[in-house]
């Protein structure tokens, strides 16, 4: 398998066209010979867009696994001290939709100690079967024992798709388990769809979020993905219909080279990810002192104050107030953005907000593409007036 350069079709003109087309600068033309450097990312653009037949891609038939041996959509249910992380409920809701396409079951995998109640909750949020690995050694997250239980579950239950919350724990555990079973893993998916042949279509932002990539795992199972908190909506808590299956925990499973010395609760922090209302500011803000203006509006609305990445980089804001791919994902009932152009990185962290109101003086700002209501104007004229009006009402 690989790229074949058809020398008879390469001349100065076609080589120049190909070099121009390559987004990675991987092609060079010297002494009448076109060569590909390791900078190549196999995007294969020139096959579709370049001079016809100049470079072709020879595909070997790949061994395809027996997909029918892998059934169902599994959700890794994360818990701390028996409390399920809400992202797990959101994933159960999505798993139900995905499994419905092929008529397959929804599984939840629960690892921990003293988690019977949590297992029951997972049934109420739509799991058909909850597989429980319960042992005092699972009380705190330990990479090897958790990964061992995870892969034991994969080997015994053979789920086709596995959804894991992109929490700190999930981002540590999912790649470990996926790599061990040599499964494909797609991180931070923002959309998921199921094909009839059980291929999971995973859509995620790429290149810092400026483009979207549609990713599939065509030849292997299981297929792993992680999804951030608040990308999907949790289903209604209903009646439990499925059953709980207790999995044997053997001693070998609990081995590892890591010892927990101490676990402390994180100090109470600024947390914008649970805010119901948010006022967010970006580079439209001219000076650090002007944060006060946005803060005043936030206070008048009872909203949390948030910001874009450049604001944090400029040292104007605490990083915990940053929305976006490298910050927090938020899903408030209302978000008002002030002077934010709306990069895809930022949008990825807030586009699922119920209502997006954008104020920006550039009518072409991309924030207006995702805003429900766009106000083309100067925030320095609009915001003080708005604060005055809200103040008069009170």
């Amino acid at each position, binding site marked *: *398998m690989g790229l074949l350069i058809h020398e008879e079709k390469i001349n100065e003109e076609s080589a120049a066209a190909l070099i121009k087309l390559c*987004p*990675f600068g991987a092609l060079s033309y010297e002494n009448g010979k076109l060569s*590909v*450097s*390791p900078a*190549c990312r196999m*995007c294969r653009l020139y096959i579709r867009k370049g001079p016809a037949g100049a470079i072709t891609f020879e595909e070997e038939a790949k061994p395809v696994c027996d997909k029918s041996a892998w059934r169902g959509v599994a959700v890794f249910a994360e818990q*701390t001290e028996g409390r399920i*992380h809400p992202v797990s409920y959101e994933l159960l809701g999505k798993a139900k939709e995905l499994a419905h396409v092929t008529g397959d079951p929804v599984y939840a995998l629960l690892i921990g100690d003293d988690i019977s109640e949590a297992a029951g909750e997972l049934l109420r949020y739509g799991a058909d079967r909850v597989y429980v690995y319960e042992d005092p050694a699972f009380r705190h*997250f330990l990479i090897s024992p958790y990964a061992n239980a995870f892969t034991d579950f994969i080997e015994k239950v053979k789920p086709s798709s596995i959804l894991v919350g992109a929490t*700190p724990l999930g981002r*540590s555990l*999912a790649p*470990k388990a*996926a*790599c061990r079973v*040599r*499964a494909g893993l*797609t*991180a931070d998916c923002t959309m998921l769809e199921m094909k009839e042949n059980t291929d999971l279509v995973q859509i995620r932002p790429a*290149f*810092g*979020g*400026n*483009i*979207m*990539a*549609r*990713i599939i795992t*065509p030849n292997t199972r299981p*297929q792993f993905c992680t999804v951030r908190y608040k990308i999907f909506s949790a289903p209604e808590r209903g009646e439990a219909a499925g059953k709980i299956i207790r999995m044997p925990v053997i001693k070998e499973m609990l081995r590892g*080279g*890591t*010892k*927990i010395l101490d*676990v402390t*609760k*994180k100090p109470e922090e600024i947390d914008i990810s649970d805010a119901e209302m948010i006022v967010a500011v970006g580079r439209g803000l001219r000076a650090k002192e002007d944060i006060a203006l946005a803060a005043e509006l936030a206070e008048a*609305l009872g909203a949390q104050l948030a910001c874009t990445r450049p604001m944090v980089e400029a040292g104007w804001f605490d*990083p915990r107030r940053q929305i976006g791919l*490298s910050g927090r994902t938020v899903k408030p*009932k209302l978000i008002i953005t002030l002077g934010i152009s709306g990069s*895809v*990185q930022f*949008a990825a962290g807030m586009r699922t907000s119920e209502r997006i*109101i954008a104020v920006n003086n550039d009518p072409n700002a991309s924030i*207006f*593409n995702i805003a*429900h*209501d766009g106000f*083309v*104007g100067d925030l320095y*004229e*609009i*915001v003080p007036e*708005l604060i005055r*009006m*809200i103040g008069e*009402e009170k």
Partner: protein
Amino acid sequence: MNIVVCVKQVPGTTAVQVDPVTGVLLRDGASSKLNPYDLFALEAAFRLKESAPEPEDVAIRTVSMGPPQAVSSLLETVYMGADKAYLISDRVFAGSDVQATSYALSCGIARTGPFDLILCGKQTTDGDTAQVGPELAESLGIEHASGVLSIDGITEESVTVTVNLDRVLQKQEMRLPCLLTIEKDAFTPRLPSFRRKFATGDDAVSVLTADDLPELDRTRCGLKGSPTQAEKIFPPEIKKDKKLFEGDGQTLAASLYGLLSSEKYL
């Protein structure tokens, strides 16, 4: 003690667009830089060396997989304080996903000598996945900790770290060898040193190709060895039914106030 720091050269900017008509990736390909998250892993390594009872007994090598131009980023790590740098570069690795990347890195790292501790940045600015470190650890058959806030102690046998989980901080002792991904802002990174720059010879960076890795299973490399495949890339979706208000500040403020009030946000 041998410390390996994994680094990556990333685009200088993430300003990438897709031409909506032709589907061609429009990219400002010229500029590139060392992944900023890797600076924290590098700094962690340098501090471990400096605080060791015998700093000369601690060897730091940096390893990267990427195109030939990534040599420049690796040189930067040497100017900062790495003793040696290795670039794994071959067309065989083109199109690698997380799995194929971590496999190739694991073969490359094993080839460059023994290791006690591997440090990675939390994530890169181009892939943004934060998954290569943990998969690399599994490929090497060692344990890892993600999101390390501090390295609290190290002996010949183990390292003590504080790990950032969602609601709690875990202090744990890990047996060596192991891999840590270092949280952003865990340390203040240093700048490359001019003195080191002048003292650095051409042999500071060695390039390894697939032929230099006899253990490498080529069926697990590149596009062929990647279970996941990008089926399509496309520009982010644009919402259609947007409502746009225009006018002077006074009018806009009044419309916005009206909206907030009628929809009961006030």
